[in-house]
């Protein structure tokens, strides 16, 4: 399925065999994201593990279930757009783009080396499948809104998706864009907040509180869903619940996640925002990733269980 454009067919309903089959695939792809993040970090010598692990299920669900694209035609004008506003999680997106066929996975072996196409933050001029360069926090909602308005001007049917970080929400430009998206009723704009609870210096709610996110975006005239961002059933249901009105309200999915999810020592631990596993730790972590998600225990800096109240 990865090499052909999705046709926009409905997602399989919860509880069906097709749904179970899809979630089995997505689970494997989320492991791919985490495994490759660990491998590429070793090449670079340091990497953003935890903010990538929190988005692993979101990446998998977007690229293997929801987005419409053609890997052999990255500039297909009617493709769904995707912008990774929290560009520091690109280390987990590159392996997905390679896996679905945008480029040869072997190119990633040169990750971050001199003249590599692949840096810590993604460059749209160098990497097929990257719809907009990112890295400077706070820009992505605006660029994605621009893509949405362009579709309106050109009469194109695509949706534009963006993943925002929760720490990123402190940037004022996010709220300029949120206001404009509500004003222009940018219905085909789908924003997902990776609400992983930590920014660099600590829990968001102690560094700079971002809650109540649902109420804030509703006040900015968005339609809001709030889900467990590690639960594929919940993610797929949220996608299925998106409206298709091009002049309806812009659509927000607040994905409650756990920073570092999938590697217990990193979960909700600010010490791993950037890190590098060495020696036996590297092998241990790979084994833990292969074993799949286990219940979250309380991290050093946050609350267990994906709650945020």
């Amino acid at each position: 399925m990865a090499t052909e454009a999705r046709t926009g067919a409905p997602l399989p309903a919860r509880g069906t065999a097709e749904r179970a089959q899809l979630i089995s695939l997505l689970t494997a792809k989320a492991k791919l994201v985490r495994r490759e993040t660990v491998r590429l970090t070793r090449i670079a010598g340091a990497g953003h593990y935890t903010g990538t692990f929190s988005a692993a299920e979101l990446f998998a669900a977007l690229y293997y279930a929801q987005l419409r694209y053609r890997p052999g035609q990255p500039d297909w004008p009617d493709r769904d757009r995707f912008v990774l506003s929290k560009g520091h999680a690109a280390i987990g997106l590159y392996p997905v783009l390679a896996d679905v066929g945008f480029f040869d996975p072997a190119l990633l072996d040169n990750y971050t080396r001199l003249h590599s196409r692949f840096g810590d933050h993604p460059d749209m001029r160098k990497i097929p499948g990257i719809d907009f360069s990112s890295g400077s926090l706070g820009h992505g909602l605006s660029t994605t809104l621009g893509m949405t308005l362009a579709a309106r001007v050109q009469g194109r049917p695509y949706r534009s998706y963006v993943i925002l970080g929760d720490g990123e929400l402190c940037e004022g430009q996010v709220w300029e864009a949120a206001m404009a998206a509500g004003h222009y009723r940018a219905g085909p704009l789908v924003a997902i907040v990776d609400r992983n609870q930590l920014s660099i210096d600590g829990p968001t709610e102690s560094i700079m509180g971002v809650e109540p996110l649902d109420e804030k975006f509703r006040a900015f005239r968005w339609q809001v869903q709030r889900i467990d961002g590690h639960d594929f059933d919940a993610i797929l249901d949220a996608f299925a619940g998106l409206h298709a009105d091009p002049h309806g309200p812009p659509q927000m999915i607040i994905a409650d996640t756990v920073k570092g999810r999938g590697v217990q020592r990193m979960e909700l631990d600010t010490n791993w925002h950037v890190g590098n596993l060495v020696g036996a730790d590297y092998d241990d972590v790979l084994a833990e990733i292969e074993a799949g998600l286990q219940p979250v225990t309380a991290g050093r800096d946050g609350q267990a269980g994906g709650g945020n109240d």
Partner: protein
Amino acid sequence: MTDDTRAAAGTGTTGTGTAAGQQISDTFTGSEGASAALKPKDQKGTTVKGIQAAAIPAFVAGQELADLGDTDPRIVVLTADLAGAGRTADFRDRHPDRFFNMGVAEQNMISVAAGMAASGLRPYLSTFAAYVALLGCEQIRTDLAYPGLPVRILAHHSGMSLGYYGTSHHSLEDLSAMRAIADLTVVCAADANQLRAILRASLDLAGPLYIRLGRGRDPEVYPEVPASFAFGRAVRLTEGRDLTLITTGSQVRPCLDAAALLAEQDGLAVRVVDMHTISPINADEAIAAASETAAVMTVEEHNVTGGLGSAVAEVLLEAGAAVPFRRHGVPDEHVVLGPPAALYAHYELDAAGIAARARRFLAP
């Protein structure tokens, strides 16, 4: 900026402006009462306070964009609540589905335009220079120049043309900031006809473009739209061997007038070069001035740090030019308060002042 600012500038979107707007409408562009008399494609013969509308850059911007938009469906226009002052309302009226007022949120406007350009459109965005170039500097670098996107910025009311609004509204650092950004073309329009030429040439330009505009009523330099306009190719407007004035944008007309004064009163033959493109700078034209004329003075409505003068100085020093050289512009200070004309006189950036500065330079 603030709402009362806009009201004072007479740049609201309805009505004929407040009393304050009337009071200073001689100084600033954007009296909506004047625009109401203008119909799209029917501006011939229309005058605004005795000036042909077709000769007023502020009026030309929206008109030319609307004309270009007639044949190029990729063109969209964005503004940050300044559709009146920047005259993009003329585009809005003819192409309402391709016009986006983004409110007073310049950074978002720049990045939205970037997303539009990445999706095949050709956005032109228009607002005060101070807020697009200084407030939006990082968005211009990261979202326009780094991805190489064809977004065109109309940065109007640059320099100190907003006069007594003060430093918050002045843009005397934008050339310095913009020319340090890789893959960004930086150009200054001297008058309405040159602005038309720039806008037409912009259709074929790869990558982003920063167009620095004055207050919108800059007097004529080019009697017709210059057919030979090309980015990066300066225009030698007068010939002379005693001094070259290398200038740009709003200072081209006063430099021409200063050259006439120097010829008439001092018997000096002055070359005037319109270095409309600041980046990439036309190095050969600067070097020619150094080798063919006795002295070189740059003239710009910009802080002397980092703008045209600095760009020319870099070229000349690296070329080994041994010509007497001066930069003339706004000194590295926050300017005193006053109406524009008074400021130009105070800082010797009107014709008489430029001539006086040239005399002191040549015969200290």
